[in-house]
């Protein structure tokens, strides 16, 4: 188009100012790498059993299942919503898989039921939030009780056991040497979610919604649709995690995955995702998953009791919510 020029020629605005080094050094991810290295060194010094290929492989089971959910949860929290029902979805999905098992369902059917249940539960959350305009924190506290309640009604204090041998592969199998199926799946999913969040227009819209959903709506972003998809994805990942856990444990109890939602959210927030929405990265979430896995595994090696572990998770959650604020005051910017 031929612009009518005003007296002065328009000044050229550069795409970006080049200060990549400063950005990389001061980023939240850099801090997480430093923390991860420190914990690795501490663990190696504290326990003679830590530095061993099979120990390190076992370690990954401490974060892969929660980490898979954290990937989707990160997107949901960036968009300004949250899902507290993920652990209850695992319980319900596992219970329904157990029921299918009683009806002699084969492994493919079990997997489909696990993942399908997760997807449906996520869609239910999404409908309540986007269709009725209810706050997600309230909706998912409700569905948290609902989903696990249904699992309890079906199971009582019973347990489903006797999953087929072929089903055991998902939670117990190895793809190559010490590399488990769970770890492989987590890394592949991390790549997919990284791509989705940072390289697609869908991901860009998530950031826009999280920063200003009204302006995003005015700009033609279908806010409700995006949020609904994110709830579905989170439910789906909880379904996947349910397949993995059920396979790894070889049984279903209604108390399965109790308290996982807090660990997942801690992972996401530790990964630098703003709890207020609008900022975060998948690289940070993956690093946070690794850190939490190493810490809990280290505690296990040192025979720290489970209750101390949950105190630690609680403190960590508070700390990581406070840290970005302290970080911002020190460096005048929020973690990228």
């Amino acid at each position: 188009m031929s612009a009518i020029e005003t007296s002065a020629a328009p000044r050229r605005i550069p795409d970006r100012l080049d200060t990549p080094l400063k950005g990389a050094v001061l980023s939240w991810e850099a801090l997480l790498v430093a923390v991860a290295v420190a914990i690795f060194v501490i663990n190696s010094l504290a326990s003679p059993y830590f530095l061993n290929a099979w120990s390190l492989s076992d370690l990954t089971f401490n974060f892969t299942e929660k980490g898979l959910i954290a990937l989707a949860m990160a997107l949901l929290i960036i968009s300004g919503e949250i899902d507290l029902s993920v652990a209850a979805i695992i319980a319900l999905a596992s219970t329904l898989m157990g029921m299918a098992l009683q009806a002699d369902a084969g492994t493919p059917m079990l997997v489909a039921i696990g993942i399908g249940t997760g997807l449906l539960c996520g869609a239910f959350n999404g409908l309540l939030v986007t269709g009725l305009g209810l706050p997600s924190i309230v909706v998912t506290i409700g569905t948290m009780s609902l989903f696990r309640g249904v699992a309890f009604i079906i199971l009582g204090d019973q347990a489903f056991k006797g999953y087929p041998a072929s089903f055991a592969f998902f939670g117990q199998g190895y793809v190559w040497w010490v590399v488990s199926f769970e770890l492989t799946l987590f890394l592949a999913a991390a790549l997919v979610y990284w791509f989705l969040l940072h390289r697609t227009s869908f991901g860009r819209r998530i950031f826009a919604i999280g920063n200003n959903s009204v302006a995003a709506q005015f700009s033609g972003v279908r806010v409700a649709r995006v949020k609904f998809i994110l709830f579905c994805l989170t439910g789906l990942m909880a379904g996947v995690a349910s397949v993995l856990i059920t396979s790894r444990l070889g049984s279903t109890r209604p108390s399965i995955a109790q308290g996982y939602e807090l660990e997942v959210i801690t992972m996401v927030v530790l990964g630098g995702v703003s709890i207020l929405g609008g900022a975060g990265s998948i690289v940070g979430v993956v690093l946070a998953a690794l850190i939490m896995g190493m810490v809990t595994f280290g505690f296990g090696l040192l025979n720290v009791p489970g209750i101390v572990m949950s105190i630690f998770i609680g403190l960590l959650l508070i700390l990581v919510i406070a840290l970005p604020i302290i970080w911002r005051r020190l460096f005048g910017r929020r973690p990228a």
Partner: protein
Amino acid sequence: MHTAALKAERPASAADAPMLSLSGVSKSFPGVRALHNVSLSLYPGQVTALIGENGAGKSTLVKILTGIYQPDEGEIRIGDDAVKLPTADAAFRHGITAIHQETVLFDDLSVAENIFLGHAPRNRFGLIDWRTMRANAREVLETMGAGHIDADARLRDLGIANKHLVAVARAMSIDARIVIMDEPTAALSAKEIEELFELIEFLKSDGKAILFISHKFDEIYRIADRYTVFRDGEMIGEGLLADKPQNEIVKMMVGRAVDHIFPEREPKIGATILSVSGLSHPTEFDGIGFELRQGEILGFYGLVGAGRSEVMQAIAGMTRTSAGSITLDGTPIAPKSAAEAIEAGIVYVPEERGRQGVVIGLPIFQNVSLPSLDRTSKSGLLRLAEEFSLARTYTERLDLRASSLSQDVGTLSGGNQQKVVIAKWLATEPKVIILDEPTKGIDIGSKAAVHGFMAELVAQRLSVIMVSSELPEILGMSDRVIVMREGRIAAVFENKDLDAETLVRAAAGIAA
């Protein structure tokens, strides 16, 4: 008690001496001079109407009187004493109280609690004496003829008119002497307005000095004794209203020096591109019909609350309508979301830049590309080079001042943010662009850039609807002007020999 002390200070013959007077008051904000050397006097037992266009400085003045803003210069006297009003509480204790459209009351407290908040009667243990408080509340309400309000009712359950009454009761309970009413009738029905006027008469007879702010001339002439006209932050005139015909006041309001040169252009107006007919909404507007022609700037003028933004948001898919049709370029459309409107070729640049316009937290280039993501990306994959080039094209045309396109849009000035907002919607290459108050609250340089750009747009055959409450902008930019009043189209003018007074009359519903 301080109220008793203040009472004693009240001069014996107060009738002709002002109860409150301001002189030489100035107030500036970064880049804007809101008030310059203004004066104002309020007299006991009289209603003074404060009249002026949007942006004349009325609300700044109210905020100074209620202790929210501090004047840069000038003096405030109550009776014979110079006073300072450093806080809202200080203003309250000096007997100044304000009743706004959104009165500062507490929805979840009872009527009695609202009336006595901060000065509740206490019993001998220092606890609130609920029985006395309720009784006093009832008494205050009775005195002002509002005995129908239950002192125990929760404020949330009251209508807006009754909330106003509670606000007045609160003022009475501290023996307020100066009552500011900032557009108190805006949300009231005709009957409620009558009741409010009765109350104002009661306050007058009680010797209160009242400042009454309204855009509606019939109300002003009905209730006010005196007038004070503000224009562009300056006091233009004051006096007794009885001596002053309406048209002279309108002249004082609008007769300004031209402070801004609008771009010269030769309109090349083509065929109708957008036609709207019978567009209605259950509460906001009714029977809106107009046509927009290619290459035209169509101005929409009206008072705040006339329904202009609501009509535009309906056309742009943000609000549902109850009836009516929209035809764009010969094709009937019924956009149900902004996304659909953008696809069809209509974009709406909203009035509330911070809330609806920019996404603070995202860099400039991502703000610009947001509505065009489907075009800059390829099968859902972002292409940053495309985004940067799109952002550069439009921001440079608008002469954006920024250090880089990756800068957070929140770090820009208001004027530059507005350029980003306009750039973002233009980048969708629309057929019709609706600009809602495009230069509200931005500096004069950015205003000129926006106006220049609008001229350029229509020269390129784009069609523009401009909603504006600024008369010079409406007169300087529009080819035609539609005036809206109370949700309906009140008048349509060709912008030839059109003057500001005609527009103001049409907007306020005054017969010529």
